[in-house]
C-alpha cells in the first residue's frame, strides 16, 4: 500500500499537477494540428523534461501521450483532417456526422469513448505491469534476446504499408545503436573520428530530426492545402440512448486497444483501425458506417486511447516499447538513469502508481478540456503553416542542442530529418527506426552475454522454453502472410469443383 500512497502523493503535488495539465493542453493542441504528432511533441519535450525530476518528467510525457491521441479526433471530426494517424478511422464517420449538423454529438462521443478506453487500459496496466515484471524477473540474457527479437519482428506489422520496409528500418536503427565504444572490448565502432560519437548516437537529436524535421520538409510541399471547416459546434455529452447503442462497442474496442497496445511495437493507429473494423463487423447497422455511424466513432476512439495505457505495460515492465511514443518515453527513462524493466518495478514501485495516477488524471483533464475547448482547438489549425513550422524548427534546433550543449547534435538532428523525409517518401516509417535505435543496446548486450554464457554455441538458445516460444512466435509473425497465402491456395484448390 505504501508505494501506492507514495506514487499518488507525488503526482498530487501542485507543480506536478500543473505539468500534467500543461502536457494535456499541449497534447490536445498538437494532436489537433495535422502534421504535428504526439511522438513529435514528446520528442520536442524530451530536452525540457531532462531538467525535471524523473517522476514529473515521465508523468508530463504520459499525459501528453494520452491527450495527443484524443486531440487528433477534434480535427478528424471538424475538418476531416485527422490531426494524428490514430484518429484517421474516426474521420470516416465523425466528419459525415459533423456535416449533417451533429459535430457536437460526435465530439462528445469521441471524448467519452476515449476516456472510457483510457481508463479501461489503465486498470489493466495497473495489474498487468507488475505481473509481467514478475515473470520477466526470471528472464536471463537469452530470454531477453529472444524477447527483443520478437519485439523487433513486431515492427513488421506496425502501421504503414510495408512490413519489409519496417523491418529494414528497424534493423538499421539497431545498427545505428552499435555506433560508439563496444562494451565488451572497448573498440570504437562507426565513430568516423568524431569524439561525440564515442558514447553512441544520442537519442534526442535523432528522435527530433526524424519526427519533427522530416515532417517539416514534407509540409514544405503542402503549403497550399486548405481544409473545409465545420464552424457551428456545441459539444454534447452522449445521451443514454447513445450509450446503449455504443456501450458494447466501447467495451470491445477498449479490450482490443489494450491488447494491441500491450504487444511490443504496436500502437494506437493499429488499435484504432482494428477497433473500427470490429465495430463494423459486430454492428447491426453496417450500412450506416461511412455515413456517420455512432459505433464508427466510439470504436476507434476507445481503441486508440486504450492502446496508450496498454503500450505502457511492456515499456515499464519489460523495457520494450509498446509504440513509437512510448519508445521516446523509454529513452527519457534511460536518460534519467533508469533501466526500464522488471527491476524498475521492484526497486521503485511508486513510479508505476505515479504514472497510473498521472494518466488517469490526464484522461479526466482532456475530457474537460476537449469538451470545453473543442472549438478553440479546431481553430488552431488556422495558424498559418508559414509561422507554425518555423516555430517547430526553432524548438527542434534548441531541443537537439540543449541536451548536451553540442552543435554536433544539431547536425545529427538535421541529417536525421533529411533521412526521415526521404525514408517516409519511400515507405519507411520513422517509428521502426527509433525503436530499433532504442532497443539496439539491449539486443546486442543480451546477445553478447548469451554467447558468452553458451560458449558461442547457438544451439543452447533452444534449451530455454521461453526462448523457443519467442522464436516460434517471431517466425509465425514474420511468415504469417506467406503461411496464410499457401493455406488459402491449398484450401481454395481443395474446394474448387472438379
Amino acid at each position, binding site marked *: 500500500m505504501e508505494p501506492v500512497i507514495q506514487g499518488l502523493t507525488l503526482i498530487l503535488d501542485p507543480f506536478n499537477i500543473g505539468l500534467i495539465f500543461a502536457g494535456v493542453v499541449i497534447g490536445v493542441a498538437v494532436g489537433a494540428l495535422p502534421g504535428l504528432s504526439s511522438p513529435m511533441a514528446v520528442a520536442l519535450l524530451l530536452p525540457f523534461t531532462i531538467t525535471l525530476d524523473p517522476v514529473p518528467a515521465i508523468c508530463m510525457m504520459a499525459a501528453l501521450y494520452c491527450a495527443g491521441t484524443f486531440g487528433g479526433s477534434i480535427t478528424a471530426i471538424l475538418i476531416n483532417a485527422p490531426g494524428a494517424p490514430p484518429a484517421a478511422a474516426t474521420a470516416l464517420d465523425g466528419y459525415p456526422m459533423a456535416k449533417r449538423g451533429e459535430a457536437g454529438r460526435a465530439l462528445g462521443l469521441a471524448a467519452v469513448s476515449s476516456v472510457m478506453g483510457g481508463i479501461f487500459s489503465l486498470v489493466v496496466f495497473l495489474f498487468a505491469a507488475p505481473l509481467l515484471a514478475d515473470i520477466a524477473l526470471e528472464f536471463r540474457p537469452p530470454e531477453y534476446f529472444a524477447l527483443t527479437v520478437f519485439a523487433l519482428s513486431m515492427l513488421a506489422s506496425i502501421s504503414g504499408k510495408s512490413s519489409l520496409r519496417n523491418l*529494414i528500418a528497424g534493423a538499421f536503427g539497431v545498427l545505428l545503436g552499435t555506433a560508439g565504444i563496444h562494451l565488451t572490448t572497448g573498440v570504437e565502432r562507426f565513430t568516423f573520428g568524431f569524439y561525440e560519437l564515442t558514447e553512441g548516437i544520442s537519442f534526442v537529436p535523432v528522435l527530433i530530426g526524424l519526427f519533427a524535421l522530416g515532417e517539416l*520538409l514534407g509540409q514544405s510541399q503542402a503549403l497550399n492545402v486548405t481544409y473545409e471547416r465545420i464552424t457551428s459546434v456545441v459539444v454534447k455529452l452522449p445521451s443514454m440512448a447513445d450509450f446503449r447503442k455504443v456501450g458494447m462497442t466501447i467495451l470491445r474496442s477498449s479490450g482490443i486497444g489494450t491488447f494491441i497496445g500491450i504487444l511490443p511495437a504496436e500502437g494506437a493507429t493499429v488499435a484504432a483501425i482494428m477497433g473500427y473494423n470490429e465495430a463494423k463487423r459486430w454492428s447491426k447497422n453496417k450500412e450506416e458506417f461511412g455515413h456517420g455511424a455512432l459505433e464508427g466513432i466510439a470504436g476507434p476512439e476507445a481503441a486508440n486511447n486504450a492502446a496508450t495505457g496498454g503500450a505502457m505495460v511492456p515499456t515499464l515492465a519489460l523495457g520494450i516499447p509498446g509504440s513509437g511514443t512510448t519508445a521516446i518515453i523509454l529513452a527519457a527513462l534511460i536518460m534519467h538513469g533508469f533501466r526500464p524493466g522488471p527491476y524498475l518495478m521492484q526497486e521503485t514501485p511508486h513510479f508505476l502508481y505515479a504514472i497510473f495516477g498521472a494518466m488517469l488524471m490526464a484522461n479526466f483533464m482532456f475530457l474537460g478540456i476537449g469538451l470545453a475547448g473543442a472549438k478553440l482547438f479546431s481553430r488552431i489549425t488556422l495558424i498559418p503553416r508559414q509561422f507554425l513550422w*518555423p516555430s517547430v524548427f526553432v524548438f527542434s534546433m*534548441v531541443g537537439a542542442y540543449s541536451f548536451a550543449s553540442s552543435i554536433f547534435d544539431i547536425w545529427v538532428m538535421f541529417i536525421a530529418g533529411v533521412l526521415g523525409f526521404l525514408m517516409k517518401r519511400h515507405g519507411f516509417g520513422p517509428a521502426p527506426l527509433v525503436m530499433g535505435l532504442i532497443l539496439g543496446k539491449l539486443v546486442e548486450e543480451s546477445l553478447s552475454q548469451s554467447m*558468452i554464457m553458451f560458449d558461442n554455441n547457438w544451439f543452447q538458445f533452444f534449451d530455454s522454453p521461453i526462448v523457443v516460444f519467442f522464436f516460434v512466435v517471431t517466425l509465425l509473425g514474420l511468415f504469417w502472410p506467406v503461411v496464410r497465402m499457401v493455406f488459402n491456395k491449398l484450401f481454395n484448390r481443395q474446394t474448387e469443383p472438379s
Partner: protein
Amino acid sequence: MNNPEKTESKAPVGEAKLPLIDRTDLGLTVVILTISGILYWLTMDFEKVADLFAQDVPPEFFPRLLIWTIVILTLGLPFEHLLLKRRGQSLTKERADRIEPMAYFTAALLFAVVASILLLGTSLSMVAVCMALPLLWGERRLKAILLFAIILPLLVTLLFSVVLGVHFEPGIFNVNMR
C-alpha cells in the same frame, strides 16, 4: 495468331499486369546495398582484439549480423510491389510526384542556418530562421514576420537559456541573454 479477345478474358478484371521488378525499388535496393557494403567494409577496419579478450564476441560480430540481415531483407524490395498489389496497396502513388523544389530550398535554408550557428550564435540563428523561412514559404506580411522573429526567439531564449540554464552559443556578435 493470337486471339486478343481470348487473351483478355484470361486476365483478372481491372488488374493491369505488373512488371516483376519495380524500378524505383530496384534503385533503392542498389543504394541500400551500397551503404551496407560500405558499412561492412568499415567493420573490417575495427581494431582487432584477442579472442580471449573479446570472449568470442568480437566487436564486428553484431554489426555484421545486422548488415547481413539488412542485405537479405533489402533483396526482397524490388519484388515487394507484387505482394502489396495483392493487398490492394501501392507505394507508387506517393512517389509518383517529384520532390517539390520548395523542399530542396527549405533543406538548403535550414542547412545554412545550422552551419551558421557558430558564427551568428544560437539566438540570432533563431531570428534568422524565423524571418527567412516564412518569407521562403510565401508569407509577405512583413510586420507579422518581424514580430514573430522577435517574440519567438526571445521566449525560447528566456525559457532555455535563462530558466533552464542552457548555455547558448554567443556567436561573433556575442549575443547572450544570460
